[in-house]
């Protein structure tokens, strides 16, 4: 059910809601009076949090790459549709490579590739699963934007986020659904919202 324009815009402004306060805290930082900075001077806990975020994204990318591999092998697709699924699958593999590198750069260890299970009985079932996972992935990346501390990691996640959104829009189109189901402003999802859904596809 698409969200109304008014509630979708309100959601954007509510995300902005703290910005007056945020401007003040920026000022406080400039004056060298920032609590948070003093709490984590070495940045170690911030790095650990970033590692957890990147590993979370990596897990979702593993699911996606496995799904597209299974989709391509299923024999349910041909022609342009098959080409599209292959191309998307290749993107996901590049995301895995980039995220794995990012975890390493942060001094962490990449999560292991999970064993996956997907319903694969026919074109429509597979596309529906892909559509669900891509829209979930786009929302998941969006949900982490405000949490990431490392600027390089942020830029990398942002560059992946919009590609997940393109994939989601393409799959929505293939299934005859709205490319922007939440109106003019996309809806983020938290780890707590995303992980139970991701879990459905982990064997």
């Amino acid at each position, binding site marked *: 059910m698409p969200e109304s324009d008014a509630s979708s815009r309100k959601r954007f402004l509510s995300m902005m809601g703290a*910005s007056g306060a945020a401007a003040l805290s920026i000022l406080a930082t400039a004056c060298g009076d920032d609590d948070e900075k003093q709490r984590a001077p070495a940045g170690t806990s911030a790095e650990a949090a970033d590692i957890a975020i990147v590993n979370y994204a990596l897990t979702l990318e593993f699911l996606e790459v496995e799904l597209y591999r299974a989709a391509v092998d299923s024999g349910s697709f041909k022609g342009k549709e098959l080409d599209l699924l292959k191309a998307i699958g290749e993107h996901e593999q590049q995301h895995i490579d980039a995220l794995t590198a990012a975890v390493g750069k942060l001094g962490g260890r990449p999560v292991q590739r999970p064993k996956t299970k997907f319903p694969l009985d026919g074109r429509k079932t597979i596309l529906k699963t892909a559509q669900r996972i891509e829209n979930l992935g786009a929302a998941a990346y969006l949900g982490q934007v405000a949490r990431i501390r490392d*600027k390089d990691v942020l830029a990398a996640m942002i560059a992946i986020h919009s590609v997940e959104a393109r994939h989601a829009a393409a799959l929505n189109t293939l299934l005859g659904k709205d490319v922007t189901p939440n109106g*003019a402003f996309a809806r983020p999802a938290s780890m707590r919202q995303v992980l139970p859904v991701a879990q459905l596809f982990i064997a």
Partner: protein
Amino acid sequence: MTAPTRIDAVEIHGRTRASFLVRGVIAVAATSGAVAVAPWVSRAIAQAPGTDADVLNFVLTLEYLEADFYAHAATLALGTEARALAQELGEHEEQHVEALQAAVRRLGGRPANRPEFVFPDRTETSFVKLAVALEDTGVSAYNGAIPRLASREIRAAAATIAQIEARHAAAVRLARGGQPAPDAFDGALDQSQVAATIRPLLRR
């Protein structure tokens, strides 16, 4: 007090719209890992400093352009599908305009003026082609802008728009029969690159 960013005041370093369309910035997608990530990451970050209101004003100007572009499309002889697409996307862009204006005001800034744009009379084919260029530019402009925002809350709010630009880009690319996602990573454009894309469409 934040002075509005004037897009036609941004210096352009010998770039043309054509050079932008080459998408050279994101030609790194063929390789992988840290080495591939580095060029567009550094591009996103190595940009002129500005307040959050300045950054939002910059993407606001791009939203003005997109909104006016789709309003202009309503005057063209488009097929049913292209017309519906132009209408829906145009409504979104107008909402982005309103939200960004409100955001700039909340930050104590003054929203950028709405420039006048000129769109050549276009066929459906050229309409869709320009739509692809503008939406792809929108995605990369946001991807360049978001890491420059100091407030993490505002980054997240801007990203809710970036995702819609990406969905639009995929939709218009599909309407043109092309790849919805041409690369594994959407690059980041800096202000001079975005200005180079916009400049030919500004009314002199």
